[in-house]
């Protein structure tokens, strides 16, 4: 009797073990059916100056305040540039989970700007394997600074410039994300015959996570047009700095040779040179408010 019950017990255990295997199989199958979308490729919607692959999800409002100070080489009398400051204010909103729009105003040439960012592909693993995230950004800049000569015939379209960008980003590991940004800038009016109306540039950005809340970011735009004979010499913008996340805010503190904070300005009008010390200290502050909370998560 004892022997029988032992045999029965052993049999029971073995079926339990088999059953557990079956359960694991089912779990495996379920998990491969799920799509794991990569999140937090970058901390903010900007790498530093330029757009990152990140966007506001539906119903979220991002209030952004950005400053660029004067250059470090203006010396101690100007407190290494901190006496001067340029401001950009922005309001950015997620209309849909894959569509974000924003408006802003720069002190530089009294420029208003507007943009839309479309998410085309999202990096994912699991059931759908996608190695990169891809977004498109289109933006318009409207310069409202008064024309120097009021007597000539000035056109409204002369104030406009357009930018189109494709963002291709990949979160390589938990700590490292990279992004490539082919960019096209068109300016309706330039100063002289020597200056191109169209500028092509390739941006590269990266984020290296240092701690849970701090990451090191770098961003560089290579301007493909010849820069030798322009009425005003421009250089490739390079920015290096840190993202610091504190609760609902993201602070970005960095150094850059660009005074401008929007694409039109840092691609087309970066006149500073790192090796000469034309380096601006700058920061972006981002505060996200949830205006519309949506209960059911959607994949759209």
């Amino acid at each position, binding site marked *: 009797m004892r022997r029988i019950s032992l045999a029965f017990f052993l049999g029971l255990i073995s079926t339990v073990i088999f059953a557990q295997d079956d359960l694991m199989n089912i779990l495996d199958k379920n998990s491969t059916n799920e799509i794991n979308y990569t999140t937090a490729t970058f901390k903010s919607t900007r790498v530093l100056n330029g757009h990152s692959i990140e966007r506001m999800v539906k119903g979220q409002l991002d209030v952004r305040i950005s400053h660029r100070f004067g250059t470090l080489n203006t010396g101690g009398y100007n407190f290494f540039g901190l006496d001067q400051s340029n401001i950009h204010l922005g309001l950015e909103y997620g209309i849909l989970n894959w569509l974000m729009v924003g408006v802003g105003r720069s002190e530089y040439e009294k420029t208003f700007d507007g943009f839309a960012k479309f998410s085309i592909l999202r990096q994912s693993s699991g059931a759908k394997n996608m190695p990169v995230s891809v977004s498109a950004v289109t933006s318009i800049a409207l310069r409202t600074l008064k024309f120097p000569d009021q007597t000539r015939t000035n056109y409204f*379209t002369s104030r406009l410039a*357009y930018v189109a960008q494709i963002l291709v980003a990949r979160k390589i590991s938990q700590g490292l994300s990279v992004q490539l940004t082919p960019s096209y800038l068109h300016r*309706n009016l330039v100063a002289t015959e020597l200056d191109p*109306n169209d500028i092509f540039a390739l941006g590269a950005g990266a984020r290296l996570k240092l701690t849970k809340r701090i990451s090191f970011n770098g961003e560089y735009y290579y301007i493909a047009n010849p820069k030798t004979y322009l009425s005003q010499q421009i250089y490739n913008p390079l920015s290096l700095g840190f993202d610091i996340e504190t609760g609902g805010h993201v602070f970005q503190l960095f150094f850059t040779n660009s005074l401008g904070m929007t694409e039109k300005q840092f691609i087309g009008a970066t006149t500073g040179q790192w090796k000469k010390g034309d380096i601006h200290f700058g920061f972006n502050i981002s505060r996200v408010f949830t205006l519309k909370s949506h209960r059911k998560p959607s994949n759209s």
Partner: protein
Amino acid sequence: MMKRLFISLTAIAIFLLFFVSCYYDNEEALYPSISSACDTTNVTFSGTITTIFSNNCYSCHSNTNASFGGGIRLQNIADVITNSQKILVSINRTGPFPMPPGGKLGSCSITQFGIWVRNGMPNN
């Protein structure tokens, strides 16, 4: 999915409408600062450009005098085409070697050279 495609295409179409108002202007060409006496329609290499150059440049930049002018020759059209970007910055005095060294060319001459370059530097 179809809805999403539709909204994307609509949004992109709206943005393309803005691009319709694309212009390729520069202030020099749009607002020329020259008198009406300046001939900007009939600019030729043999007539206009060679006259400007012989009056202002050939003392150092002719084929025989080029040793004075850093080896830059401006007599043959091929040499002018090769150096056209340098000439543009030099006569506009925005480059490292403003030319002519004695003083700026008249605005009519500068504009005429710019027009000839914009026309594709024809040998006429």
